[in-house]
């Protein structure tokens, strides 16, 4: 067994287990030590992941893909998880058993990594289930707060439906193609004709992925989780599973040669519905977290644009990864600022923030404008490459629809930016202390610096497609 190929994952598992054991025996005042432990584990995993750069092959009986997309995707997952870890100690300081929280984060991250690297449908199901099961716990971590429990419940119910659909889809796909491995499926698809049963199977798998991605029609959990879950969990759940799912989704779509099964037009339609729905729902929200939840749905729609042109444009893979980097940096930063401000969330509570907390206000504005795609943020570079790939892949109408949606999205982001800048301040604003402050600073730095370093990401990704076919 080529154990060396999954060393990053092993590092994550080991540190999760270590944290779990530690948290079981440590007193409450030492529970926060779980955070540095998690950071160490994540750093080790990231180093091991970087060590794999340049490798392009399938491993573990062709069920695990080591290619640029999976490496950068898993690195992003690790980074996003580490960022979330910074938010948690302050947020959960009052929670008696929050040491376990870090173990849960790591397990959920592991599930997302498994999805990002999956080159086999069963591997994909395993990753999705691990990510979901730990995600329910993260969403409902405030056990005695109704909104949090409701968020976890909704997350769970929709997840149960979606994951079941996915398993049924895997069975149908396996039945039609004779293999669950992507290499075998790709071969069968290239040779054979599409059939209605195969299409149903693929659609069911897509439903499962859409759930993890927060895309229509399985998006309904997103706003509730954004509003009700603890803010560190929200930051995590709106980003990390999405990264894993988006890469798995794109890899799955890459197996289908253009023309045999009309899967790309289907994904394009899904992208259009998702972004439009998310934007329309976000328009008049009065709650920042809920607005960010709906905006996160619409951002999934943009990500699906890259999925729709996989195999049609050489820019599809870099566009997807670059966009995910931009989305992750912006969304995490926005939620970090919310956590730093002790979770304040009503629109009116942000009046005059630019006067009382200029740095935090500046960060939120930067993050929101990066979500719109205003230069010179990483969000802009991601969206630029995304539009480029979509036009190049022949889906200009989808790019035009995304443009209209982007303009609409500016409206609801400005609805929150304007009171921060233009309204008079109401009362003093409390913060959560140093660690979240550091997270806010790192996040805003990342939004700007990643944009300058985009070249370093693009070059390796331009050269590689998705294994097993690219």
């Amino acid at each position, binding site marked *: 067994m080529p154990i060396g190929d999954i060393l990053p994952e092993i590092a994550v598992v080991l540190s999760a287990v270590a944290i779990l054991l530690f948290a079981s025996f440590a007193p409450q005042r030492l529970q926060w030590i779980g955070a540095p432990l998690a950071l160490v584990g994540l750093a080790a995993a990231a180093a091991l992941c970087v060590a794999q750069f340049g490798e392009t092959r399938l491993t573990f009986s062709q069920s695990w893909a080591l290619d640029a997309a999976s490496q950068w995707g898993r690195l992003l997952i690790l980074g996003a998880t580490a960022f979330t870890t910074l938010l948690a100690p302050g947020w959960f300081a009052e929670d008696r058993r929050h040491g376990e929280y870090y173990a849960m984060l790591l397990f959920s991250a592991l599930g997302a990594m498994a999805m990002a690297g999956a080159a086999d449908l069963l591997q994909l199901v395993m990753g999705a289930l691990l990510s979901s099961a730990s995600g329910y716990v993260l969403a409902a971590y405030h056990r005695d707060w109704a909104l949090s429990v409701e968020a976890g419940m909704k997350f769970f119910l929709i997840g149960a439906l979606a994951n079941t659909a996915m398993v049924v889809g895997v069975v149908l796909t396996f039945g039609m193609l004779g293999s669950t491995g992507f290499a075998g499926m790709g071969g069968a698809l290239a040779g054979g004709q599409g059939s209605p049963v195969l299409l149903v199977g693929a659609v069911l798998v897509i439903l499962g992925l859409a759930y993890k991605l927060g895309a229509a029609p399985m998006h309904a959990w997103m706003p509730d989780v954004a509003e009700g879950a603890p803010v560190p969990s929200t930051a995590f759940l709106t980003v990390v599973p999405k990264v894993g799912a988006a890469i798995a989704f794109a890899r799955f779509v890459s197996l289908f040669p253009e023309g045999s099964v009309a899967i790309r037009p289907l994904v394009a339609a899904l992208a259009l519905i998702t972004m439009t729905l998310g934007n329309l729902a976000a328009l008049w929200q009065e709650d920042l977290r809920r607005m960010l939840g709906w905006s996160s749905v619409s951002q999934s729609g943009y990500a699906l644009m890259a999925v729709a042109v996989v195999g049609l444009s050489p820019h599809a893979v870099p566009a997807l990864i670059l966009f995910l980097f931009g989305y992750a940096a912006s969304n995490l930063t926005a939620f970090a600022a919310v956590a730093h401000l002790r979770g304040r969330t009503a629109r009116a509570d942000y009046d005059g923030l630019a006067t009382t907390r200029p740095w935090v206000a500046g960060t939120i504005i930067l993050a929101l404008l990066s979500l719109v795609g205003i230069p010179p943020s990483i969000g802009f570079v991601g969206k630029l490459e995304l*539009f480029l790939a979509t036009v190049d892949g022949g889906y200009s109408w989808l790019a035009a629809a995304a443009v209209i949606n982007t303009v609409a999205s500016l409206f609801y982001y400005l609805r929150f930016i304007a009171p921060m800048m233009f309204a008079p301040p109401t009362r003093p604003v409390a913060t959560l202390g140093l660690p979240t402050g550091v997270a806010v600073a790192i996040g805003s730095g990342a939004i700007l610096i990643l944009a300058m370093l985009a070249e370093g990401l693009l070059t390796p990704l331009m050269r590689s497609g998705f294994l097993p076919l690219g």
Partner: protein
Amino acid sequence: MLTLAILLPLIASLALALGPGFGERVARVIALVASALSLLALVVVWLGFDTGAGAPAFQAVAEFAWIPALGVAWRVGVDGMALAVALMSALLFVGSIAWPADYKGKARQYYAWFLFLQGVSLGLFLALDLLLFYVFFDLSLVGMYFLIGRWGHGDAEYAALKFFIYTLAGSLAMLLAILALVLANDTLTFDMRALIAAQPLRGTDLKASLVLFGLLLGFAIKTPLVPFHTWLPLAHVEAPGPASAILAGVLLKMGTYGIVRIPFSMMRETFAAYALPLAILALVSILWGAIVALGQTSLKRRIAYTSVNHMGYTVLGIAAAGAALGAESARTLALTGAVTEMVAHGLITGSLFLMAGSFWQRAQTYEMSAFGGLARTAPKLTAAFFLAAFASLGLPALAGFVAEFQIFAGTFAVYPWLAAVALIGIVVTAALFLSMAQKLFMGRAAVPTRDFPDFSRTEAAVVAGLLVLVVLIGIYPSWLLTLIETGSAFLPGAGGVR
């Protein structure tokens, strides 16, 4: 040197934004110095600018890699048109920053945003990379949004929102078109020089037409052409005076400059095919802007609508120059006129809006009926306003005349009927400026003398600086025309001729 002209204001803006210790005075001095140094850098480039026959299309070029994988780089350089517009913009920025304004207690942030806007505006005119151009185009929206929203009056927040959303829609349409244009080229590059040479899209098939429409939509919103102009009066009325001057003098030019720089130069064949509809749209803007301006009772709204009218002349000149009709000399004349109009309109309307700001500072209203007989109480203001108004309506020996004369002379050779109808616009403009000046300065005094002091020394100096140039261009235009006619848009073969 060009990079310096862009970065100096941006760095100073950052310093002002991050340095909490600066008082009002220090902030003002820093802003003025940075702004003036940036202008100085441009003047240095101008002094070294070669206007001879064998001059290269773009001069003072500098290039640094940014995203080589996409063919994107920091590329700056100027031809005569870019340099002329950039010089005018920098000068107007110095004037607007010097202009006394109501900071609402936030002088540091006010100047920081102005410098930011100066950096990105100059960046746009100096960029030789399509993506860089787009970046600066977008950033100018952000800067203007915060300036209007924070330091505007009345329903400033709504005006700023409408401005931002409207123009972002245009800029994103432009982005898609830019991407399609770049992808149509054989090699992936955003280098303007390469794209001008390659002419990646030709003819009037669906793709080329859509790309052209996307570009023109983006620029028509920014310019603005009727019917995409509805954001403009609102933004102008609510913005503070100096921001209005920048909006009219610099930001509107981005639209017309963009038309010449991108569709006109990079898709000559397609542009020529659609030149007539564009010219008709320009004609509608000329007439609509003039007639609606006549109906305004607010001083600032009236000036705002004359901008629609004047930018209409500019676009008319560009469309005539781009049409593959008539003599080439006539088309060159039309394009020179259009670029001259950009410079002239920046100086004239810039000073008019600055003066409108003075009215607000003194009386907190723009309603013309609130004023009267000001010639007695504020003679310097009156003289400057009359001069600017005459220049704006196209009186000979002033800059507006030089520009409009060339536009009309050129357009008559290409679209005689359109040019003839457009002349009505000039008549209406003359009427509306004269009636405005009459209401404000003649007749019975409506405001007590002590409430309406004449120009302060700063105000007088700024307006004098701008209007001296207006007169100079009017009397002796050849230095400007020679500068403008150097460069890529005027090279043999430009403007639909092959």
